[in-house]
């Protein structure tokens, strides 16, 4: 029996996301994908999946989902008030769910706006151009190219063999991504820093900007001290990498995020480190951003640390799955011992399911 989710309420913006639709930007196809990919990966590992499986990205106000079938669910990222059958449920933990269970959210607790809900087997939507991520602006990928709404029936895929043995596994605090709401957002100068005077760059890196209400998966428009151009804001279009800080003629920065267009004609004085994009993406309008100068080397180091954390979590999961004791009656014993008398000799037989 598979696992299905009957959507009772869609929530503010609940979309299917994986690591994104890379490899097609030359066709003008935006990448999309999770705004906090490390949180997505953690949720997947906890649910018994591989890290880049498709899961639900939930924004501030979560959906209400009725479960049909059996499987696991794990939530990560921001605390948006997860409940199962009306009872608060822990984040960062693999929970078992069965037919009739209702997953819902009571609302954000503390800072952070994006949570990930991964289910055993992942969300089974068609792979379009190499990814299951939803790009809502063009209605491509995900669940019918859009956010979930009441009445949708979402199927999960075939779970990996050891999913039941993952139940109860949780991510230790040391391996959870840190999303400090006050931390400076680090960025590398370029590709068009030469379109700005040193004073203008000083303004960008020395000021506090506020996230405006125009902040979504495509980008965050910020408001604060103007960043003047040397000559003009327009350039002959070039590529827009994730985290590009665009400064159009009005002098206010826009940080380009997962659903950004692939190319554009505005100057980009700096690009945010990949690892810090999720830190920014967890902030909401009204919160502030300060930028700090960084280097590609520091960005690579942070990505290596991220990979290490995920590898460590994967290792812990393997250990958890091969531990001898069974869990709360949900799982059959996977190891044991008994004695056997053969021809007057007593032998102790120890066994373990592999």
């Amino acid at each position, binding site marked *: 029996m598979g696992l299905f989710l009957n959507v009772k309420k869609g929530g503010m913006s609940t979309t299917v996301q994986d690591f994104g639709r*890379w*490899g*097609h*930007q*030359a*066709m*003008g*196809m*935006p990448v999309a994908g999770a705004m906090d990919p490390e949180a997505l990966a953690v949720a997947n590992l906890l649910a018994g999946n591989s890290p880049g499986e498709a899961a639900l990205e939930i924004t501030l106000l979560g959906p209400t989902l009725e479960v049909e079938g059996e499987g696991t669910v794990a939530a990560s990222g921001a605390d948006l008030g997860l409940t199962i059958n009306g009872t608060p449920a822990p984040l960062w933990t693999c929970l078992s769910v069965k037919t009739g269970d209702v997953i819902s959210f009571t609302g954000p607790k503390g800072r952070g706006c994006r949570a990930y809900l991964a289910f055993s087997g992942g969300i089974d939507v068609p792979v*379009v*151009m190499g990814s299951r991520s939803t*790009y809502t*602006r*063009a209605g*491509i*990928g995900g669940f019918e190219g859009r956010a979930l709404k009441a009445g949708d029936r979402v199927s999960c895929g075939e779970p990996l063999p050891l999913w039941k043995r993952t139940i109860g596994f949780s991510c230790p605090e040391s391996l959870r991504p840190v999303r400090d709401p006050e931390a400076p957002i680090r*960025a*590398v*100068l*370029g*590709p*068009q820093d030469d379109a700005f005077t040193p004073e203008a760059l000083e303004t960008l890196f020395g000021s506090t900007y506020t996230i405006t209400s125009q902040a979504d998966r495509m980008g965050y428009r910020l408001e604060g001290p103007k960043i003047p151009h040397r000559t003009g804001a327009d*350039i*002959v*279009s*070039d*590529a827009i*990498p*994730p*985290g*590009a800080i665009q400064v159009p003629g009005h002098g206010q920065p826009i940080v380009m995020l997962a659903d950004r*267009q*692939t*190319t*554009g004609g505005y100057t*980009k004085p700096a*690009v*945010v*480190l*990949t690892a810090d994009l999720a830190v920014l993406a967890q902030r909401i309008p009204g919160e502030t951003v300060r930028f700090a100068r960084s280097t*590609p*080397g*520091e*960005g*690579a180091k*942070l*990505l*290596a640390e991220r*990979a290490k954390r995920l590898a460590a979590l994967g290792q812990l999961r393997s250990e958890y799955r091969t531990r001898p004791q069974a869990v709360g009656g949900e799982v059959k014993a996977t190891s044991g011992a008994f004695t056997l008398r053969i021809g007057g000799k007593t032998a102790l037989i120890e066994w373990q399911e592999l």
Partner: protein
Amino acid sequence: MEEPRTPRLLDAGDSCLVAEFGASVDRALNAKVQALKHALAKCAVKGIVELVPTYRSLAVYYDPLLLDREELKKRIESACETLDEASQAESRVVTIPVCYGGTFGPDLENVCAHTGLSKEEVIARHTGRDTYCFMLGFTPGFAYLGGMDESLATPRLENPRTLIPAGSVGIAGKQTGIYPIDSPGGWQLIGRTPLAVFDPLRNPPTLVEAGDWVRFEAISESEYEAIRAAAKAGQYTVKIALRKEAA
């Protein structure tokens, strides 16, 4: 202006380098971008995630855990040393059939009024010259075409439309283009193609790639319907010719 042979390598975050050949819209410059793209694609460097050509630069996305940035810079520089734009001397010419005017091209009369040309003359000039695809971007599958007959230049609509059907062919200033997906926009619509220039479920999803030429061909309404039906049934072969550049 002679553009340098070796591009400037610009930082674009921790996972992207931009090889910039210049700052203008120029076909010779774009040919270098295409040539570098092909050279890097050919040597299949481990850790390169994807290559995104634009008018005047090539964005090289890479995984810094698999490929060291300095090593990547060296690979790009050495690829540039043997850059062979001549390999690009033969490019594809993709024919896009267009039904001009009527309900498909509600702004054809605006273009006539602005340019002082007859409908027939606008169509003749729009189909009479191949346009070059510098890059794709803006929306999925949108080809930036250059080289339209400048006598057709017409400013955008003052009031953009909220919904333009996919396949619409329009003019905005000196540019011409095809809307790949339903979207809002302010281009002067002069016709529509029955072909899906972008289909995410098809491989490849786009008909036109950067470095291709696009040739518009006028068709009647009945031909439009016939081609649309054939294309839907997978029985239409897009006309593609090769174009040789004089060295």
